[in-house]
Every structure is written in structure tokens, then in C-alpha cells.
């Protein structure tokens, strides 16, 4: 019988620890599928962040290093420079990448490191219990912005793709979402493209994936998907911000 659907080889078959309705599971699967399809699993080295995805090394079926909070792009730089023919990717959340790790991501992008960054933005600190993130929306209530994010004192959500697109070196930067099947397919396409760029040695690639956190948003999974669509996408417009291919066309 022909198998039409199954576990990607790049995912381990153990259950994950993510909360019900969290979209990390979907994003893990998309990354694994992309790695499978490009047939680079044996060459892949993941860098896990600090945050909800800290245990990513238990889920991706490839070698992995766990990095200190925000430092994943620096760790990935070290790995890639030591092993240039390997496929090195980081998987980071918004607190990790856009707050404590802002220096590391900007400079890895600016050096044009030939790595792939999967940036999961759910507008909140998940692992630590729902504190305000650099991508928290104005007015959004979190455990450290209990009256809603006040832009007068805490600023505005940081748009990472737009910011990194001001740099010359990056090869591919895109923002996608996983709130419905159509967008999941688009997300998959972008993630695969990013890895493909790396395989072809084109330089720094980043895919920002808008994601939900039903637990810390205080919503049901379905409400969370709706909230993402209605609130996050206007603040973080989807699209491709940099693509060397399109530039060269």
C-alpha cells in the first residue's frame, strides 16, 4: 500500500510538551518536512533556544545544540563556520530573538551567515508564564503588562522582518502564519525556500512564523487562531521582505 501521510523522518516520534492548541507542533512539522524534502537531515544541526522550544532537540531527529537565552545565532555561527557543509538552523521565540538576543540576530544577519533562523512570534513569553514580549501588541494584557501594553512607557511591537530587511546581507526574509491551512501551506513553502537558500550557500535566511499561545493569551485554541488573524497580522504584515532571487529577476 502506498503511504500518503506519516511522520517526517526529521521528527522524533515522541510526544511533545507543548500546550494543547499551541502551533509550535505545526511549525516543528513544517521544518522537519522541509529538511526531509531537501534530503539534508543527516547534515542538519539544530540550535535550540531558551523558551518553550528549549527541548527542540528532543523533537528534531538531527544533531542539536542548546543555546543560552538569545545566543542561538552566535552558536549557529560557530557551528556553521566549523562545518560549512552542514545545514545549521536556529529555532527561536520572540523573547529570545527580539529581546535578549537582538544583538546576536542583527549581527548574524549582517554578516550574512549561511544559516536559517525560524523565528516563532506569539507576542508573549510562553515558558516563563505569559510576560510581555518585545512583540506584544499595544494594549495587550500580559502578566507584566496587567493593564495592557502601554506604548508610552514600553514602546511598540518590534517588527523583526522589516528591521532586518534594512540590512544588505540577508538573502531571504519572510513572515508567514499558521492560523489556517492555506497559510500553513504558505509557511511550509517559505521555510523550505529558506533551507534551500542555505543548501545553495546563498546566505542568511529568516522565516518569522506568527504563532498562538492559547494558554498565556487565556483563550481556547480556536479563539487564539482568530485572535492571531485579527490582531497579529495587521501588526505584523505577512509577506516576503527579502529574496535574492526576486531581486535578481
Amino acid at each position, binding site marked *: 500500500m502506498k503511504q500518503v501521510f506519516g511522520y517526517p523522518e526529521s521528527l522524533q516520534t515522541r510526544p511533545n510538551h507543548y500546550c494543547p492548541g499551541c502551533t509550535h507542533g505545526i511549525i516543528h512539522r513544517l521544518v522537519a518536512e522541509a529538511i526531509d524534502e531537501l534530503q539534508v*537531515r543527516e547534515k542538519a544541526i539544530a540550535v535550540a533556544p531558551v523558551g518553550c522550544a528549549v527541548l527542540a532537540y528532543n523533537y528534531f531527529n538531527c544533531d542539536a*545544540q*542548546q*543555546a*543560552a537565552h538569545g545566543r542561538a545565532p552566535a552558536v549557529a*555561527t560557530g*557551528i556553521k563556520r566549523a562545518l560549512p557543509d552542514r545545514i545549521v538552523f536556529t529555532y527561536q521565540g520572540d523573547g529570545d530573538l527580539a529581546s535578549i538576543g537582538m544583538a546576536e540576530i542583527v549581527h548574524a544577519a549582517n554578516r550574512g551567515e549561511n544559516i536559517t533562523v525560524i523565528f516563532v512570534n506569539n507576542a508573549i513569553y510562553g515558558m516563563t508564564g505569559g510576560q510581555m514580549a518585545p512583540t506584544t501588541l499595544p494594549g495587550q494584557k500580559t502578566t507584566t503588562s496587567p493593564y495592557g501594553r502601554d506604548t508610552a512607557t514600553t514602546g511598540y511591537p518590534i517588527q523583526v522582518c522589516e528591521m532586518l530587511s534594512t540590512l544588505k546581507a540577508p538573502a531571504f526574509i519572510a513572515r508567514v502564519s499558521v492560523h489556517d491551512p492555506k497559510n500553513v501551506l504558505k509557511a511550509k513553502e517559505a521555510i523550505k525556500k529558506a533551507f534551500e537558500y542555505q543548501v545553495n550557500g546563498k546566505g542568511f535566511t529568516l522565516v518569522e512564523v506568527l504563532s498562538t499561545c492559547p494558554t498565556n493569551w487565556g483563550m481556547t485554541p480556536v479563539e487564539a487562531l482568530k485572535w492571531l488573524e485579527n490582531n497579529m497580522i495587521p501588526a505584523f504584515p505577512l509577506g516576503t521582505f527579502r529574496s535574492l532571487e526576486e531581486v535578481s529577476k
Partner: protein
Amino acid sequence: MAERIMMKGNEAFAEGAIKAGCHFFFGYPITPQNEIPEYMSRRMPEVGGTFIQAESEVSAINMVYGAGGAGARAMTSSSSPGVSLKQEGISYIAAAEVPCVIVNVARGGPGLGGLTPSQADYFQAVKGGGHGDYHMVVFAPASVQEIIDLMYEAFVTADKYRTPVMVLADGLLGQMMEPVVLRDWEDLQIPEKPWATTGMVSGKPQSVINSLGLAPEELENLNLRLQKKYRTIEENGVRYEEDGVEDAELIIVAYGTSARVSKSAIAKARAEGKKVGLFRPITLWPFPSKRLAELAEAGKRFMAVEMSAGQMIEDVKLAVNGKTEVEFYGRYNGAIPSVTEVYQAIIKSFDNREVQK
């Protein structure tokens, strides 16, 4: 063939590392060690290696973590305030058991401090510095030749025990020039590293470089393993130099630049018949406690000479364990004691002894 050339201490750290098979350097500018990254930026392309001027000390140490975890001989260098920034990474590296070398060409502190030589980073180097129960091996060279030799030792030790190794010097050693012999080491074979994250090629089981242990027993097991390793290093890795301790009544304990100054002061006091010797720890961790305890048992008195308010003296006192007297002479943070000062401290120690008698 080995040639004899003049070399600056900082360049010796760099060339010593390259001679030891290190092809990955990640660093950030800070005085008084800037010649190290500058030299590396020039030399690494010549040997097919990698030099990255990182965006920060924090990034530099994490690049070392990545490259070391991927199996490469990797290093970073910095000076005191920069080494403080690296402590997070060093703690992770120790926990994840990633071999690597960190050079600290120390300057005066605390805070931004000054640019002049200091030994006030002893505590930071040997007592942890970062969080958690860990140690790194700390070598303390006292000459430019020893810098080169210990850089090799540092990489070999790092690989042997899967541990971070620090080579701790002060700004004077980094800045001075001396004649050196650049050896080509016979045993440059980097050991097999099946644990490294090199990819699951040809069915290799998954390698994970990690310091997270969420289950209490998992974390305790990691710590038990680390402590066992530290005991092995304490058993086998202690290095020191002695000069004239056998007949000495007073032994000066000093490392690095302080040991050089003390050596001259001791020669001067010896010429006047004072029975004084030198004990120079070459490894600051593991500290040569056993040997110092033996010497204390034999009735020797001690004086720690340091370019700090007195840090290594605590380890000397722990080793001596109250059996004999331990005095101190130090200049703080940026000041180098003169031969005359140390000589006078030695004479005063003997004079006080006479009065007591």
C-alpha cells in the same frame, strides 16, 4: 626546525594557539589584549582558519560554544571586563562539557578599572565566575615562552577532559617581548569526538550539546559526573614550579608577573643569607594544595605576593590549614610591586620573626 624569535606576549597567545591546532578564533576588542585578535585576523586566513570579530564578548564566547561543540579547537580572548561578560557562556560550556580555551589578559578593576596589569581576576577564574557548581582549568604563564607552551597544554587539556580551560595572564605578560622558541608539536592529532554535533551522517546516533536538566536526578547526575571529573583533574593536572624551597624558612607563593618580581627579590634576600624560596603555581585550578600542605607540615612559613588585595592567599591558607603563618604582600589593581618592595617585605618578615624570638 624550531627557531628562536622575539615575540610579544599577546602574539604568543595567538601563535601558540595556532601551533596547537586551533583554527577558530572569536573575539572582541579590549585593551590590553588587542594584539591577539589583530594577529588572528592576519594569521587565520593563512592557515585556512576562521577569525570573527564578534559583536560582543557574549557572542564571541557563544561562537566558541558552537564551534567547540561541533568538534573544532576554538578559542576566545579578552581582558577583565570582557571576561565578566563571557561568564554566562563559560558556565554553559562547562555544563555542556565543550572543550575550548579562553585567554584573559587581565587589567585592573573592579568596574571599567584601568588598562594596567592586574591579578584581581583570580577569584573569577578559579572560583567559578559564572553560575553553578563548575570549575575550569586555569593556567598561569610567567613568560612569553610559557604562554606558547601553555596554550598547547590548554588545548590538549580541554580536549582530554572536555572542559573549558582558561589561560590567565596580566597585561604586563601580554605586552612584553621576549625571545621564544616556536615548537612544532609532535602530537597534534585532535582526538576523536563522537559526542560532537557533526550531523547524524551514516547512522551516527544523535549528538546533543546541552546543559538543561529539568529532572532533579538528571541534573544531579550531571553534577556528580562533573565533580568526578574535577577530582580526576585535581589528581592529575596540578602544575607548579619550586625554587629553593627545601632549605627555606619562608616561601613566597606567587604566579605570573608577581612570581617574576618575587624571584629577583628572593635572589637579593638570599644574597644576604635569608632562607627564602619561591613556590609558583602554574595551574591556579587545580591549585597545588597538596604540595603546599606538605611544605607547611615541614614547618615552612609562607607569603603570598599578588597584584590584588589578596585572592590566591585564600587558597594558600586553605592548603596550609593553620599549620604555619601565611603573610601577604600586594599592590592593588594596576600597580606592579617593585623588586625592592617585595625584598623589603621579605626582610621585614624575617625581622619580625627575630623580634618574636
